[in-house]
């Protein structure tokens, strides 16, 4: 198994690639044993068992024991947060004002950031990234491929969601103002009401914050609320009910205490990194939460989240692995990283599964993608070999 990742055998036509897998998890139907994925002009041309899909001449062949779609990280800050962790490369949180929904992720995303490269080489092909937790509204997020030299080359959706936070980190980042959970909710309600009034006005003077909030109110952008504890999660649900925006819960370490409420609200959860440190707002985080959500039928995906120190980013499928080792079914874990993530982010027409016509985003593994010792040996993004070194 361990020797299974092979170098390209031919360099005839960079555009046309054939990937052979001992097992190919297409995430669109059952896994295919001894499968082949044909790639042409950056897109998936054909998928099927080797017995039925022959490799045309001139295709560059890659082979691995396990093949999956590219991994999708549904909440990161990489590209805004950099590897050095010095002010020069930390753009995920602007602390001059706790409410800045107008900050656009595309104005700060560094497509060449080393952390982006690191994740790409480990198989993460798409990131939902942008402004971090820690402000009432820290700014917007974007969705990008981890391939491309500029944000324009990489981006799929330049303005995906607005990142909100309900929790004590806001107080500590903004000198104690807002200083309580109630105050945070009060300030947010005031902003939503202001946005409702702005929306009702004809030809208002442009207000970038309110323009963004109107997009949240009319559903054009989703409100991603970082909330961990029961009271914070309940506040997020209450705000959603009052203003009718599209809510995504992010973090949610006490979600297992609110299974019925979350199920009824039909809200998607971007679950905290499984290995998040159990302190402060995540003291009650559990390795088993993903399994409990899956059991209850609550939709969720995984995230690498935000890290303030070493390591500077987590790796989303490493986090899923620990959830799978603690009761989440393997197949559900893989789905959450691929097709479920793509559907949630609204990009399933392009990525998330190995199906004809989709972008050719593939990861070639030495073995079980969740095993600690299974290296990623080739990453293909948009049909291009983005990494070919095992790591």
């Amino acid at each position, binding site marked *: 198994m361990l020797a299974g990742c092979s170098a390209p055998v031919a360099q005839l036509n960079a555009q046309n690639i054939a990937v052979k897998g001992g097992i190919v998890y297409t995430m669109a139907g059952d896994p295919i044993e001894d499968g082949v994925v044909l790639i042409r002009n950056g897109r998936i041309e054909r998928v099927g068992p080797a017995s039925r899909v022959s490799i045309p001449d001139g295709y560059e062949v890659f082979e691995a024991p396990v093949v999956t779609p590219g991994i999708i990280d549904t909440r990161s800050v990489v590209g805004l947060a950099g590897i050095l962790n010095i002010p020069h490369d930390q753009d995920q949180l602007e602390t001059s004002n706790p409410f800045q929904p107008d900050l656009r992720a595309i104005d700060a995303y560094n497509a060449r950031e080393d952390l982006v490269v690191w994740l790409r080489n480990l198989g993460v092909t798409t990131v939902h990234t942008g402004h971090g937790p820690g402000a009432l509204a820290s700014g917007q997020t974007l969705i990008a491929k981890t391939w491309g030299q500029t944000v324009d080359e990489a981006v799929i959706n330049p303005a995906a969601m607005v990142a909100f936070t309900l929790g004590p980190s806001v107080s500590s980042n903004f000198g104690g103002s807002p200083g309580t959970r109630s105050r945070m909710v009060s300030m947010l309600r005031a902003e939503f009401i202001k946005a409702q009034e702005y929306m009702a006005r004809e030809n208002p003077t442009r207000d970038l914050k309110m323009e963004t909030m109107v997009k949240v109110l009319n559903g054009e952008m989703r409100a991603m609320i970082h909330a961990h504890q029961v009271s914070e999660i309940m506040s997020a649900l209450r705000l959603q009910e009052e203003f009718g925006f599209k809510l995504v819960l992010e973090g949610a370490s006490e979600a297992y205490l609110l299974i019925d409420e979350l199920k009824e609200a039909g809200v998607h959860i971007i679950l905290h990194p499984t290995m998040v440190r*159990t302190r402060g707002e995540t*003291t009650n985080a*559990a390795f088993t939460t993903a399994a409990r959500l899956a059991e209850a039928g609550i939709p969720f995906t995984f995230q690498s989240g935000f890290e303030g120190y070493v*390591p500077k980013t*987590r790796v989303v499928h490493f986090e899923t692995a620990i959830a*799978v080792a603690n009761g989440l079914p393997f197949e559900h874990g893989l789905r959450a990283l691929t097709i479920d993530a793509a559907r949630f982010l609204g990009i399933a027409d392009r990525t998330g599964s190995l199906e004809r016509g989709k972008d050719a985003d593939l990861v070639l593994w030495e073995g079980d993608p969740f095993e600690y010792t299974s290296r990623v040996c080739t990453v293909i993004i948009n049909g291009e070999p983005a990494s070919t070194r095992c790591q």
Partner: protein
Amino acid sequence: MNPKVSYRLLGALLCLLVIPLGVTAQQVPVAFEGATIYPISSEPIENGVLVVHEGKIVAVGAAGSVSIPADAERRDASGFIIMPGLVDTHSHIGGGDGGDRSSPLHPDVRIMDAIDVRSDTFKKARTGGVTTANVMPGSGHLLSGQTIYLKLRNARTIYDMLIPDARLRDGFAGGIKMANGTNPLRAAPFPGTRARSATLQRGLFIEAEAYRERLQNEENVPRNLRLEPIVEALNGDRIVHFHTHRHDDILTVLRMQREFGFRVVLHHVTDAWLVADEIAAAGVPSSIIVLDTPGGKLEALNLLYKSGRVLEEAGAEVSFHTDDGVTDSRLFFRMAAFAVRDGMSRQKALEALTLAAARQLDMEDRVGSLEPGKDADFILLTGDPFSVYTHVQQTWIEGIKVFDRANPDQLPYATGGHEIFRGDYFDHYSVGGAQ
């Protein structure tokens, strides 16, 4: 009476007094049968038998080759792997601290005076299979204080966890925590440059050399709490655990070690793979950390999965450490698995978690392998040690079970949950802005 002797006696007496209170050593031998046993000091044994009695290992071997005492309680361990309890060579469990901001050098500060034995972090570490830990003071000093080696026994007071060491004046095993690179750099009285760091550290060793000479040649030398532990380090009785990242900082440690002759373990050693030959040639062991991603601070930019492999190839001795809370003691095996992912041999990685780590704490006579006469510190694993799907099923220390995954009251310490933990955690980010 020589005060040195009295302290040693006190240490020994305290241990004699307290151990029977904290634990109940088995009166009858216990035999674990049917497991695959990794003694570490020898080849794995299929269908093995491990016999323990009164806190010690009595016998290890293949079924049929080991005589099981007639009065032994026999336990079926088939399907499990049994290996020694893990030895974490650098941890911050126990909620302790260390030196404060008054000085960059705190040789007189003992972390044993600040440990909460009821801390969540001990419960977590037991679920990860950790049975012995070098608990470190600090961080952010040239010398953060004296470290303490703990057995993670169920404890009422710190004395239940300590390990007697007659060589040391305080009577309990521990080391010294030092650091270079950017970690101790800050406003005066701290150093502002690397060279200043080295000169302050050298100054302390030179002071201690002079004090040692007085102790050897004079009567009634006044006690000096700052220099006593450094003299113990100079004498080789107390190992210096030296936090160091950059390749040139690593070489500075080796240079200082040659100058003063203390025994040292390099800690973190991010750039080890750049100077592995120099480390191996110095015969100095490394205690490494493997993280998911490099970066987060400048000195960690080269922190790659390959450190363990490169050091192994160079012939240098390696252990792992959690640096808990940088990484989680519950997932200590995960770190070794990532070293294996990048080519470290399974055997060396297992040794790094156990016997090599024990050697770095001068405890290889007691722990780190399954051999007759050693402490009965062992764990039962549900599968391959390097698989994500494997759990630590049970953790035993000196013949006492301190964690059992099958116990519903204890399982949550492995998985987390509502009001399981109190949030005890060593926050490397807020402790003096440690870098």
